[in-house]
Protein backbone atom coordinates (compact mmCIF):
# COMPACT_ATOMS: atom_id res chain seq x y z
CA UNK A 1 0.00 0.00 0.00
CA UNK A 2 1.56 3.30 -1.02
CA UNK A 3 1.45 6.60 0.83
CA UNK A 4 -1.30 7.96 -1.39
CA UNK A 5 -3.60 5.07 -0.58
CA UNK A 6 -2.86 5.30 3.13
CA UNK A 7 -3.70 8.99 3.04
CA UNK A 8 -6.94 8.28 1.17
CA UNK A 9 -7.91 5.58 3.69
CA UNK A 10 -7.34 7.93 6.61
CA UNK A 11 -9.10 10.79 4.93
CA UNK A 12 -12.16 8.64 4.29
CA UNK A 13 -12.07 7.50 7.91
CA UNK A 14 -12.02 11.12 9.01
CA UNK A 15 -14.87 11.97 6.67
CA UNK A 16 -16.88 9.09 8.13
CA UNK A 17 -16.66 10.35 11.72
CA UNK A 18 -16.80 14.03 10.77
CA UNK A 19 -20.61 14.40 11.12
CA UNK A 20 -20.43 13.03 14.66
CA UNK A 21 -17.43 15.16 15.57
CA UNK A 22 -19.17 18.18 14.12
CA UNK A 23 -22.27 17.49 16.22
CA UNK A 24 -20.07 17.07 19.28
CA UNK A 25 -18.40 20.40 18.52
CA UNK A 26 -21.75 22.17 18.21
CA UNK A 27 -23.07 20.51 21.36
CA UNK A 28 -20.30 21.75 23.64
CA UNK A 29 -20.25 25.35 22.43
CA UNK A 30 -22.72 28.20 22.94
CA UNK A 31 -25.46 28.20 20.31
CA UNK A 32 -24.28 31.44 18.75
CA UNK A 33 -20.85 29.94 18.08
CA UNK A 34 -22.01 26.47 17.01
CA UNK A 35 -21.56 27.18 13.33
CA UNK A 36 -18.27 29.06 13.56
CA UNK A 37 -15.01 27.31 14.01
CA UNK A 38 -13.14 29.22 16.65
CA UNK A 39 -10.66 27.06 18.41
CA UNK A 40 -10.83 29.04 21.62
CA UNK A 41 -14.60 29.44 21.80
CA UNK A 42 -15.83 28.92 25.34
CA UNK A 43 -17.03 25.43 26.27
CA UNK A 44 -20.41 24.81 27.83
CA UNK A 45 -22.72 22.00 28.90
CA UNK A 46 -25.71 24.27 28.60
CA UNK A 47 -26.99 22.60 25.43
CA UNK A 48 -27.21 19.23 27.13
CA UNK A 49 -29.07 20.78 30.04
CA UNK A 50 -31.49 22.52 27.68
CA UNK A 51 -32.10 19.39 25.59
CA UNK A 52 -32.75 17.39 28.76
CA UNK A 53 -35.36 19.93 29.89
CA UNK A 54 -37.01 20.66 26.49
CA UNK A 55 -37.93 17.04 25.88
CA UNK A 56 -38.76 14.30 28.42
CA UNK A 57 -35.49 12.51 27.71
CA UNK A 58 -35.42 10.72 31.06
CA UNK A 59 -38.79 9.16 30.30
CA UNK A 60 -37.71 8.20 26.76
CA UNK A 61 -34.61 6.52 28.16
CA UNK A 62 -36.66 4.52 30.64
CA UNK A 63 -39.08 3.48 27.88
CA UNK A 64 -36.31 2.42 25.51
CA UNK A 65 -34.50 0.43 28.19
CA UNK A 66 -37.77 -1.24 29.20
CA UNK A 67 -38.52 -2.01 25.56
CA UNK A 68 -35.18 -3.58 24.65
CA UNK A 69 -35.05 -5.57 27.90
CA UNK A 70 -38.56 -6.91 27.44
CA UNK A 71 -38.10 -7.76 23.78
CA UNK A 72 -34.75 -9.45 24.32
CA UNK A 73 -35.83 -11.57 27.29
CA UNK A 74 -38.99 -12.73 25.53
CA UNK A 75 -37.02 -13.44 22.36
CA UNK A 76 -34.46 -15.53 24.21
CA UNK A 77 -37.13 -17.77 25.75
CA UNK A 78 -39.42 -18.08 22.72
CA UNK A 79 -36.67 -18.53 20.16
CA UNK A 80 -34.79 -21.05 22.30
CA UNK A 81 -37.85 -23.28 22.61
CA UNK A 82 -38.68 -23.06 18.91
CA UNK A 83 -35.07 -23.59 17.84
CA UNK A 84 -34.84 -26.65 20.09
CA UNK A 85 -37.96 -28.07 18.45
CA UNK A 86 -36.57 -27.49 14.94
CA UNK A 87 -33.09 -28.79 15.74
CA UNK A 88 -33.88 -31.93 17.73
CA UNK A 89 -37.51 -33.01 17.27
CA UNK A 90 -38.75 -34.90 14.27
CA UNK A 91 -42.36 -33.75 14.38
CA UNK A 92 -44.95 -33.81 11.61
CA UNK A 93 -44.95 -30.67 9.45
CA UNK A 94 -41.58 -29.49 10.69
CA UNK A 95 -40.19 -28.41 7.34
CA UNK A 96 -43.32 -26.53 6.34
CA UNK A 97 -43.39 -24.82 9.75
CA UNK A 98 -39.76 -23.82 9.36
CA UNK A 99 -40.38 -22.34 5.92
CA UNK A 100 -43.29 -20.35 7.40
CA UNK A 101 -41.02 -19.04 10.15
CA UNK A 102 -38.49 -17.85 7.58
CA UNK A 103 -41.15 -15.70 5.89
CA UNK A 104 -40.63 -13.21 8.73
CA UNK A 105 -37.02 -12.60 7.65
CA UNK A 106 -38.41 -10.77 4.66
CA UNK A 107 -41.76 -9.46 5.94
CA UNK A 108 -40.71 -7.65 9.09
CA UNK A 109 -43.61 -6.34 11.22
CA UNK A 110 -42.91 -2.75 10.12
CA UNK A 111 -43.92 -3.61 6.56
CA UNK A 112 -47.42 -4.59 7.72
CA UNK A 113 -48.03 -1.41 9.71
CA UNK A 114 -51.71 -1.00 8.90
CA UNK A 115 -52.89 -4.47 9.91
CA UNK A 116 -50.58 -4.76 12.89
CA UNK A 117 -51.79 -1.42 14.22
CA UNK A 118 -55.36 -2.67 13.91
CA UNK A 119 -54.48 -5.83 15.82
CA UNK A 120 -52.84 -3.83 18.60
CA UNK A 121 -55.87 -1.56 18.87
CA UNK A 122 -58.15 -4.61 19.12
CA UNK A 123 -55.96 -6.17 21.80
CA UNK A 124 -56.01 -2.89 23.71
CA UNK A 125 -52.23 -2.69 23.35
CA UNK A 126 -52.02 0.51 21.30
CA UNK A 127 -49.82 3.05 23.05
CA UNK A 128 -48.16 0.49 25.34
CA UNK A 129 -44.56 -0.68 25.44
CA UNK A 130 -45.80 -4.26 25.17
CA UNK A 131 -47.51 -3.22 21.95
CA UNK A 132 -44.20 -2.00 20.48
CA UNK A 133 -42.38 -5.18 21.44
CA UNK A 134 -44.93 -7.94 20.86
CA UNK A 135 -44.61 -8.33 17.06
CA UNK A 136 -40.86 -8.84 17.39
CA UNK A 137 -40.83 -11.40 20.18
CA UNK A 138 -40.98 -14.44 17.92
CA UNK A 139 -37.95 -13.57 15.84
CA UNK A 140 -37.32 -15.73 12.78
CA UNK A 141 -33.73 -14.61 12.80
CA UNK A 142 -33.26 -15.71 16.42
CA UNK A 143 -34.89 -19.08 15.77
CA UNK A 144 -32.73 -19.60 12.70
CA UNK A 145 -29.49 -18.65 14.44
CA UNK A 146 -30.12 -20.79 17.53
CA UNK A 147 -31.32 -23.76 15.49
CA UNK A 148 -28.00 -23.72 13.66
CA UNK A 149 -26.07 -23.47 16.91
CA UNK A 150 -28.03 -26.36 18.47
CA UNK A 151 -27.50 -28.52 15.40
CA UNK A 152 -23.72 -28.35 15.73
CA UNK A 153 -23.85 -29.72 19.28
CA UNK A 154 -23.04 -33.48 19.24
CA UNK A 155 -25.95 -35.77 20.09
CA UNK A 156 -23.68 -37.82 22.37
CA UNK A 157 -23.77 -34.99 24.91
CA UNK A 158 -27.56 -35.13 24.96
CA UNK A 159 -27.51 -38.93 25.29
CA UNK A 160 -25.06 -38.72 28.18
CA UNK A 161 -27.28 -36.19 29.96
CA UNK A 162 -30.30 -38.45 29.43
CA UNK A 163 -28.43 -41.38 30.97
CA UNK A 164 -27.73 -39.16 33.96
CA UNK A 165 -31.49 -38.65 34.25
CA UNK A 166 -32.08 -35.27 32.56
CA UNK A 167 -35.58 -34.57 31.23
CA UNK A 168 -36.27 -32.97 27.83
CA UNK A 169 -36.20 -29.50 29.32
CA UNK A 170 -33.26 -30.43 31.52
CA UNK A 171 -31.23 -31.32 28.43
CA UNK A 172 -32.10 -28.00 26.84
CA UNK A 173 -31.18 -26.03 29.95
CA UNK A 174 -28.03 -27.97 30.93
CA UNK A 175 -26.57 -28.94 27.55
CA UNK A 176 -27.83 -26.84 24.67
CA UNK A 177 -28.19 -23.39 26.21
CA UNK A 178 -24.72 -23.29 27.87
CA UNK A 179 -22.99 -24.54 24.73
CA UNK A 180 -24.68 -21.96 22.50
CA UNK A 181 -23.55 -19.01 24.64
CA UNK A 182 -21.55 -17.23 21.88
CA UNK A 183 -24.61 -17.35 19.62
CA UNK A 184 -26.77 -15.88 22.38
CA UNK A 185 -24.31 -13.04 22.85
CA UNK A 186 -24.19 -12.27 19.12
CA UNK A 187 -27.96 -12.35 18.88
CA UNK A 188 -28.42 -10.16 21.96
CA UNK A 189 -26.17 -7.44 20.52
CA UNK A 190 -28.05 -7.36 17.24
CA UNK A 191 -31.43 -7.39 18.92
CA UNK A 192 -30.58 -4.60 21.36
CA UNK A 193 -29.11 -2.40 18.61
CA UNK A 194 -32.08 -3.04 16.36
CA UNK A 195 -34.68 -2.14 18.96
CA UNK A 196 -32.72 0.76 20.38
CA UNK A 197 -32.70 2.26 16.88
CA UNK A 198 -36.08 1.11 15.56
CA UNK A 199 -38.43 3.93 14.64
CA UNK A 200 -41.36 3.40 12.25
CA UNK A 201 -43.36 0.82 14.20
CA UNK A 202 -42.86 2.52 17.60
CA UNK A 203 -43.93 5.82 16.01
CA UNK A 204 -47.19 4.26 14.83
CA UNK A 205 -48.08 2.38 18.01
CA UNK A 206 -47.24 5.07 20.55
CA UNK A 207 -48.88 8.43 21.02
CA UNK A 208 -47.94 9.64 24.46
CA UNK A 209 -44.83 10.52 26.42
CA UNK A 210 -45.48 7.54 28.71
CA UNK A 211 -44.57 5.05 25.99
CA UNK A 212 -42.47 6.81 23.34
CA UNK A 213 -38.94 5.43 23.00
CA UNK A 214 -35.88 7.57 22.33
CA UNK A 215 -36.04 7.46 18.53
CA UNK A 216 -39.61 8.74 18.47
CA UNK A 217 -38.86 11.38 21.07
CA UNK A 218 -35.82 12.44 19.09
CA UNK A 219 -37.85 12.76 15.90
CA UNK A 220 -40.35 15.08 17.57
CA UNK A 221 -37.58 17.04 19.23
CA UNK A 222 -35.43 17.33 16.09
CA UNK A 223 -38.19 18.12 13.59
CA UNK A 224 -37.58 21.51 11.96
CA UNK A 225 -41.04 22.67 13.14
CA UNK A 226 -39.99 22.35 16.77
CA UNK A 227 -37.79 25.44 16.35
CA UNK A 228 -35.11 24.17 18.71
CA UNK A 229 -31.68 25.44 17.72
CA UNK A 230 -28.98 23.30 16.18
CA UNK A 231 -26.65 23.17 19.18
CA UNK A 232 -29.43 21.82 21.39
CA UNK A 233 -30.53 19.27 18.77
CA UNK A 234 -26.94 18.06 18.50
CA UNK A 235 -26.75 17.66 22.25
CA UNK A 236 -30.04 15.75 22.34
CA UNK A 237 -29.06 13.51 19.45
CA UNK A 238 -25.72 12.69 21.06
CA UNK A 239 -27.41 11.85 24.35
CA UNK A 240 -29.82 9.49 22.61
CA UNK A 241 -27.11 7.59 20.73
CA UNK A 242 -24.49 7.68 23.49
CA UNK A 243 -25.26 4.38 25.29
CA UNK A 244 -25.15 2.30 22.12
CA UNK A 245 -22.20 4.24 20.72
CA UNK A 246 -20.16 3.76 23.89
CA UNK A 247 -21.03 0.05 23.97
CA UNK A 248 -19.85 -0.19 20.36
CA UNK A 249 -16.58 1.61 21.06
CA UNK A 250 -15.87 -0.77 23.94
CA UNK A 251 -16.98 -4.04 22.32
CA UNK A 252 -16.07 -3.14 18.74
CA UNK A 253 -14.97 -6.53 17.50
CA UNK A 254 -17.94 -8.33 19.04
CA UNK A 255 -20.33 -5.82 17.47
CA UNK A 256 -18.92 -6.23 13.98
CA UNK A 257 -18.96 -10.02 14.23
CA UNK A 258 -22.54 -10.04 15.48
CA UNK A 259 -23.74 -7.71 12.74
CA UNK A 260 -22.04 -9.90 10.19
CA UNK A 261 -23.69 -13.04 11.49
CA UNK A 262 -26.97 -11.18 11.41
CA UNK A 263 -26.47 -10.35 7.75
CA UNK A 264 -25.25 -13.73 6.58
CA UNK A 265 -27.72 -15.77 8.64
Amino acid sequence: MNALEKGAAWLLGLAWVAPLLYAAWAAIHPAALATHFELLAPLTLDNFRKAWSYAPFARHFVNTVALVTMVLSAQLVICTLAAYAFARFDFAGRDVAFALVLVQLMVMPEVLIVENYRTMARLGLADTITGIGLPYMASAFGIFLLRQAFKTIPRELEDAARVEGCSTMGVLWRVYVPLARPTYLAYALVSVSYHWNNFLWPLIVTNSVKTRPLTVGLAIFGAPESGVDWAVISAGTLMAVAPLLVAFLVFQRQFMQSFMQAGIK
Partner: protein
Amino acid sequence: MKHVQGWLLLLPAAILLVAFTHYPAAATLFDSFFSTGTAVRPSRFVGIANYAALADDPVFWQVLRNNAIFALATIPTSMALAMTMAAWVNGKLPARALVRMSYFTPTVLPMIAVANLWLFFYSPQIGLLDKITGAFGAPSHNWLGDPHTVMACLAVMTVWKEAGFFMIFYLAALQSLPPELAEAARIEGASRWYFFRRVTFPLLMPTTLFVLVNATLNSFKLVDHLFILTKGGPDNASNLLLYYIYQVAFSFFDTAYAATLTVVLLALLAGLAIAQFQLVERRVHYR
Protein backbone atom coordinates in the same frame (compact mmCIF):
# COMPACT_ATOMS: atom_id res chain seq x y z
CA MET B 1 -44.88 -38.13 21.76
CA LYS B 2 -42.12 -36.46 19.73
CA HIS B 3 -44.81 -34.76 17.63
CA VAL B 4 -46.60 -33.33 20.66
CA GLN B 5 -43.38 -32.17 22.30
CA GLY B 6 -42.12 -30.57 19.11
CA TRP B 7 -45.30 -28.60 18.55
CA LEU B 8 -45.57 -27.60 22.19
CA LEU B 9 -42.07 -26.13 22.10
CA LEU B 10 -42.92 -24.30 18.89
CA LEU B 11 -46.31 -23.06 20.10
CA PRO B 12 -45.42 -19.64 21.60
CA ALA B 13 -43.39 -18.65 18.54
CA ALA B 14 -46.04 -20.03 16.18
CA ILE B 15 -48.85 -18.03 17.79
CA LEU B 16 -46.91 -14.77 17.60
CA LEU B 17 -45.70 -15.35 14.05
CA VAL B 18 -49.19 -16.15 12.82
CA ALA B 19 -50.64 -13.14 14.64
CA PHE B 20 -48.09 -10.57 13.42
CA THR B 21 -46.75 -11.91 10.14
CA HIS B 22 -49.01 -14.42 8.40
CA TYR B 23 -52.41 -13.14 9.47
CA PRO B 24 -51.65 -9.46 8.67
CA ALA B 25 -50.15 -10.41 5.31
CA ALA B 26 -53.28 -12.37 4.39
CA ALA B 27 -55.58 -9.66 5.79
CA THR B 28 -53.74 -7.04 3.73
CA LEU B 29 -54.36 -9.00 0.54
CA PHE B 30 -58.01 -9.49 1.52
CA ASP B 31 -58.49 -5.79 2.36
CA SER B 32 -57.09 -4.71 -0.97
CA PHE B 33 -60.28 -6.01 -2.62
CA PHE B 34 -62.57 -3.94 -0.39
CA SER B 35 -63.30 -0.23 -0.09
CA THR B 36 -62.31 1.78 2.97
CA GLY B 37 -65.25 1.75 5.37
CA THR B 38 -66.55 4.97 6.93
CA ALA B 39 -69.19 5.66 9.55
CA VAL B 40 -71.87 6.23 6.94
CA ARG B 41 -70.64 3.85 4.28
CA PRO B 42 -69.41 0.43 5.44
CA SER B 43 -66.60 -1.35 3.65
CA ARG B 44 -67.75 -3.41 0.62
CA PHE B 45 -66.25 -5.68 -1.99
CA VAL B 46 -64.92 -3.69 -4.95
CA GLY B 47 -62.97 -6.32 -6.88
CA ILE B 48 -59.84 -4.90 -8.45
CA ALA B 49 -61.00 -1.28 -8.25
CA ASN B 50 -58.21 -0.43 -5.79
CA TYR B 51 -55.65 -1.84 -8.19
CA ALA B 52 -57.17 0.17 -11.04
CA ALA B 53 -56.91 3.29 -8.88
CA LEU B 54 -53.31 2.39 -8.16
CA ALA B 55 -52.48 2.12 -11.84
CA ASP B 56 -53.98 5.59 -12.35
CA ASP B 57 -52.26 7.14 -9.33
CA PRO B 58 -49.35 9.29 -10.54
CA VAL B 59 -47.93 9.44 -7.00
CA PHE B 60 -47.70 5.63 -6.88
CA TRP B 61 -45.64 5.56 -10.06
CA GLN B 62 -43.52 8.41 -8.81
CA VAL B 63 -42.68 6.70 -5.50
CA LEU B 64 -41.89 3.50 -7.37
CA ARG B 65 -39.57 5.45 -9.65
CA ASN B 66 -38.05 7.17 -6.62
CA ASN B 67 -37.42 3.80 -5.00
CA ALA B 68 -35.62 2.68 -8.15
CA ILE B 69 -33.57 5.89 -8.35
CA PHE B 70 -32.76 5.68 -4.66
CA ALA B 71 -31.60 2.07 -5.03
CA LEU B 72 -29.55 2.82 -8.17
CA ALA B 73 -27.95 5.89 -6.59
CA THR B 74 -27.03 4.32 -3.26
CA ILE B 75 -26.33 0.63 -3.77
CA PRO B 76 -23.53 0.54 -6.39
CA THR B 77 -21.76 3.49 -4.74
CA SER B 78 -21.90 2.08 -1.23
CA MET B 79 -20.83 -1.36 -2.45
CA ALA B 80 -17.84 0.01 -4.33
CA LEU B 81 -16.90 2.07 -1.29
CA ALA B 82 -17.41 -0.94 0.98
CA MET B 83 -15.07 -3.03 -1.17
CA THR B 84 -12.44 -0.29 -1.13
CA MET B 85 -12.75 0.16 2.61
CA ALA B 86 -12.43 -3.58 3.18
CA ALA B 87 -9.32 -3.77 0.98
CA TRP B 88 -7.77 -0.89 2.91
CA VAL B 89 -8.39 -2.15 6.41
CA ASN B 90 -7.36 -5.66 5.33
CA GLY B 91 -3.97 -4.33 4.17
CA LYS B 92 -0.98 -3.05 6.10
CA LEU B 93 -2.53 0.22 7.15
CA PRO B 94 -1.17 2.02 10.24
CA ALA B 95 -3.92 2.55 12.87
CA ARG B 96 -6.22 0.32 10.89
CA ALA B 97 -8.36 -0.66 13.89
CA LEU B 98 -9.19 3.01 14.31
CA VAL B 99 -9.96 3.46 10.61
CA ARG B 100 -12.13 0.32 10.56
CA MET B 101 -14.01 1.59 13.57
CA SER B 102 -14.73 4.96 12.01
CA TYR B 103 -16.01 3.29 8.80
CA PHE B 104 -18.38 1.15 10.84
CA THR B 105 -19.61 3.79 13.31
CA PRO B 106 -22.57 5.09 11.24
CA THR B 107 -24.01 1.54 11.24
CA VAL B 108 -24.77 1.63 14.96
CA LEU B 109 -26.56 5.00 14.80
CA PRO B 110 -30.34 5.15 14.40
CA MET B 111 -31.47 6.61 11.07
CA ILE B 112 -33.36 9.32 12.98
CA ALA B 113 -30.17 10.54 14.63
CA VAL B 114 -28.36 10.42 11.29
CA ALA B 115 -31.10 12.56 9.74
CA ASN B 116 -30.80 15.05 12.62
CA LEU B 117 -27.05 15.35 12.07
CA TRP B 118 -27.30 15.71 8.31
CA LEU B 119 -30.26 18.07 8.35
CA PHE B 120 -27.90 20.73 9.47
CA PHE B 121 -25.46 20.16 6.61
CA TYR B 122 -28.24 20.69 4.13
CA SER B 123 -30.04 23.66 5.69
CA PRO B 124 -29.94 26.79 3.56
CA GLN B 125 -27.61 29.62 4.68
CA ILE B 126 -26.41 28.22 8.01
CA GLY B 127 -25.73 24.68 6.68
CA LEU B 128 -22.23 23.42 6.01
CA LEU B 129 -22.97 22.63 2.35
CA ASP B 130 -24.24 26.15 1.71
CA LYS B 131 -21.17 27.58 3.43
CA ILE B 132 -18.85 25.54 1.23
CA THR B 133 -20.62 26.45 -2.01
CA GLY B 134 -20.94 30.01 -0.72
CA ALA B 135 -17.16 30.19 -0.36
CA PHE B 136 -17.00 29.62 -4.13
CA GLY B 137 -19.45 32.43 -4.67
CA ALA B 138 -22.55 30.31 -5.34
CA PRO B 139 -25.88 31.72 -4.11
CA SER B 140 -27.65 30.10 -1.16
CA HIS B 141 -29.62 27.02 -2.11
CA ASN B 142 -32.41 25.08 -0.40
CA TRP B 143 -30.89 21.63 -1.00
CA LEU B 144 -33.72 19.59 0.48
CA GLY B 145 -36.44 21.89 -0.86
CA ASP B 146 -35.42 21.59 -4.50
CA PRO B 147 -36.80 18.53 -6.35
CA HIS B 148 -33.59 18.40 -8.43
CA THR B 149 -31.19 18.10 -5.52
CA VAL B 150 -33.21 16.41 -2.78
CA MET B 151 -32.64 12.79 -3.90
CA ALA B 152 -28.90 13.34 -4.31
CA CYS B 153 -28.70 14.73 -0.77
CA LEU B 154 -30.54 11.74 0.67
CA ALA B 155 -28.42 9.34 -1.39
CA VAL B 156 -25.13 10.76 -0.07
CA MET B 157 -26.37 10.44 3.48
CA THR B 158 -27.51 6.84 2.92
CA VAL B 159 -24.18 5.85 1.38
CA TRP B 160 -22.47 7.26 4.46
CA LYS B 161 -24.78 5.27 6.71
CA GLU B 162 -24.53 1.92 4.89
CA ALA B 163 -21.07 1.55 3.34
CA GLY B 164 -19.44 0.50 6.63
CA PHE B 165 -22.04 -2.19 7.19
CA PHE B 166 -21.38 -3.75 3.78
CA MET B 167 -17.64 -3.44 4.41
CA ILE B 168 -17.67 -6.12 7.12
CA PHE B 169 -18.96 -8.74 4.67
CA TYR B 170 -16.19 -7.94 2.20
CA LEU B 171 -13.66 -7.93 4.99
CA ALA B 172 -14.71 -11.41 6.09
CA ALA B 173 -14.56 -12.63 2.48
CA LEU B 174 -11.10 -11.11 1.94
CA GLN B 175 -9.79 -12.71 5.10
CA SER B 176 -10.95 -16.12 3.94
CA LEU B 177 -9.03 -15.90 0.64
CA PRO B 178 -5.91 -18.11 0.66
CA PRO B 179 -2.74 -15.97 0.97
CA GLU B 180 -0.97 -18.24 -1.57
CA LEU B 181 -2.91 -16.47 -4.35
CA ALA B 182 -1.32 -13.11 -3.61
CA GLU B 183 2.08 -14.73 -3.24
CA ALA B 184 1.81 -16.51 -6.58
CA ALA B 185 0.70 -13.29 -8.26
CA ARG B 186 3.67 -11.44 -6.78
CA ILE B 187 6.09 -14.06 -8.05
CA GLU B 188 4.50 -13.84 -11.49
CA GLY B 189 4.92 -10.07 -11.33
CA ALA B 190 1.22 -9.19 -11.61
CA SER B 191 0.35 -5.62 -10.68
CA ARG B 192 -1.94 -5.05 -7.71
CA TRP B 193 -4.70 -3.69 -9.92
CA TYR B 194 -4.41 -6.66 -12.27
CA PHE B 195 -4.54 -9.05 -9.32
CA PHE B 196 -7.64 -7.32 -7.96
CA ARG B 197 -9.39 -7.30 -11.31
CA ARG B 198 -8.60 -10.90 -12.31
CA VAL B 199 -8.42 -12.71 -8.96
CA THR B 200 -9.90 -10.88 -5.96
CA PHE B 201 -12.96 -9.36 -7.63
CA PRO B 202 -14.18 -12.62 -9.21
CA LEU B 203 -13.62 -14.47 -5.95
CA LEU B 204 -15.67 -11.83 -4.13
CA MET B 205 -18.58 -12.33 -6.53
CA PRO B 206 -20.73 -14.45 -4.17
CA THR B 207 -20.32 -11.76 -1.48
CA THR B 208 -21.16 -9.04 -3.99
CA LEU B 209 -24.37 -10.77 -5.06
CA PHE B 210 -25.32 -11.42 -1.46
CA VAL B 211 -24.74 -7.80 -0.42
CA LEU B 212 -26.59 -6.60 -3.51
CA VAL B 213 -29.78 -8.49 -2.66
CA ASN B 214 -29.65 -7.44 0.98
CA ALA B 215 -29.00 -3.82 0.08
CA THR B 216 -31.96 -3.85 -2.29
CA LEU B 217 -34.22 -5.33 0.40
CA ASN B 218 -32.98 -2.65 2.80
CA SER B 219 -33.63 0.14 0.35
CA PHE B 220 -37.37 -0.65 0.49
CA LYS B 221 -37.49 -0.63 4.28
CA LEU B 222 -35.35 2.45 4.91
CA VAL B 223 -37.68 5.44 5.24
CA ASP B 224 -37.05 6.77 8.77
CA HIS B 225 -34.99 9.71 7.55
CA LEU B 226 -37.89 11.05 5.47
CA PHE B 227 -39.81 11.83 8.67
CA ILE B 228 -37.12 14.34 9.66
CA LEU B 229 -35.67 15.62 6.42
CA THR B 230 -38.37 15.99 3.79
CA LYS B 231 -41.67 14.27 4.68
CA GLY B 232 -41.50 12.88 1.15
CA GLY B 233 -41.47 16.36 -0.38
CA PRO B 234 -41.12 18.68 -2.10
CA ASP B 235 -44.15 17.55 -4.08
CA ASN B 236 -43.31 13.84 -3.56
CA ALA B 237 -39.87 14.27 -5.12
CA SER B 238 -38.28 12.21 -2.34
CA ASN B 239 -41.23 10.01 -1.38
CA LEU B 240 -40.67 6.25 -1.13
CA LEU B 241 -43.17 3.38 -1.21
CA LEU B 242 -43.19 2.52 2.49
CA TYR B 243 -43.45 6.18 3.48
CA TYR B 244 -46.31 6.65 1.01
CA ILE B 245 -48.08 3.65 2.62
CA TYR B 246 -47.67 5.36 5.98
CA GLN B 247 -49.10 8.62 4.61
CA VAL B 248 -52.05 6.96 2.94
CA ALA B 249 -52.89 4.93 6.05
CA PHE B 250 -52.21 7.38 8.86
CA SER B 251 -52.60 10.82 7.29
CA PHE B 252 -55.27 10.21 4.61
CA PHE B 253 -56.88 7.30 6.53
CA ASP B 254 -57.48 5.34 3.34
CA THR B 255 -56.68 1.90 4.76
CA ALA B 256 -57.93 -0.07 1.75
CA TYR B 257 -55.64 1.81 -0.61
CA ALA B 258 -52.78 1.46 1.89
CA ALA B 259 -53.42 -2.30 1.86
CA THR B 260 -53.25 -2.29 -1.95
CA LEU B 261 -49.91 -0.46 -1.85
CA THR B 262 -48.67 -2.90 0.80
CA VAL B 263 -49.50 -5.83 -1.49
CA VAL B 264 -47.19 -4.28 -4.11
CA LEU B 265 -44.45 -3.90 -1.51
CA LEU B 266 -44.91 -7.51 -0.37
CA ALA B 267 -44.71 -8.72 -3.96
CA LEU B 268 -41.45 -6.81 -4.47
CA LEU B 269 -39.99 -8.20 -1.24
CA ALA B 270 -41.08 -11.74 -2.15
CA GLY B 271 -39.41 -11.46 -5.54
CA LEU B 272 -36.17 -10.36 -3.89
CA ALA B 273 -36.41 -13.12 -1.30
CA ILE B 274 -36.71 -15.73 -4.05
CA ALA B 275 -33.64 -14.25 -5.74
CA GLN B 276 -31.79 -14.42 -2.42
CA PHE B 277 -32.85 -18.01 -1.81
CA GLN B 278 -31.56 -19.09 -5.21
CA LEU B 279 -28.30 -17.34 -4.50
CA VAL B 280 -27.87 -19.20 -1.24
CA GLU B 281 -28.60 -22.49 -2.99
CA ARG B 282 -25.93 -21.76 -5.55
CA ARG B 283 -23.41 -20.85 -2.88
CA VAL B 284 -24.01 -24.21 -1.22
CA HIS B 285 -23.21 -25.97 -4.50
CA TYR B 286 -19.85 -24.23 -4.68
CA ARG B 287 -18.69 -25.93 -1.51
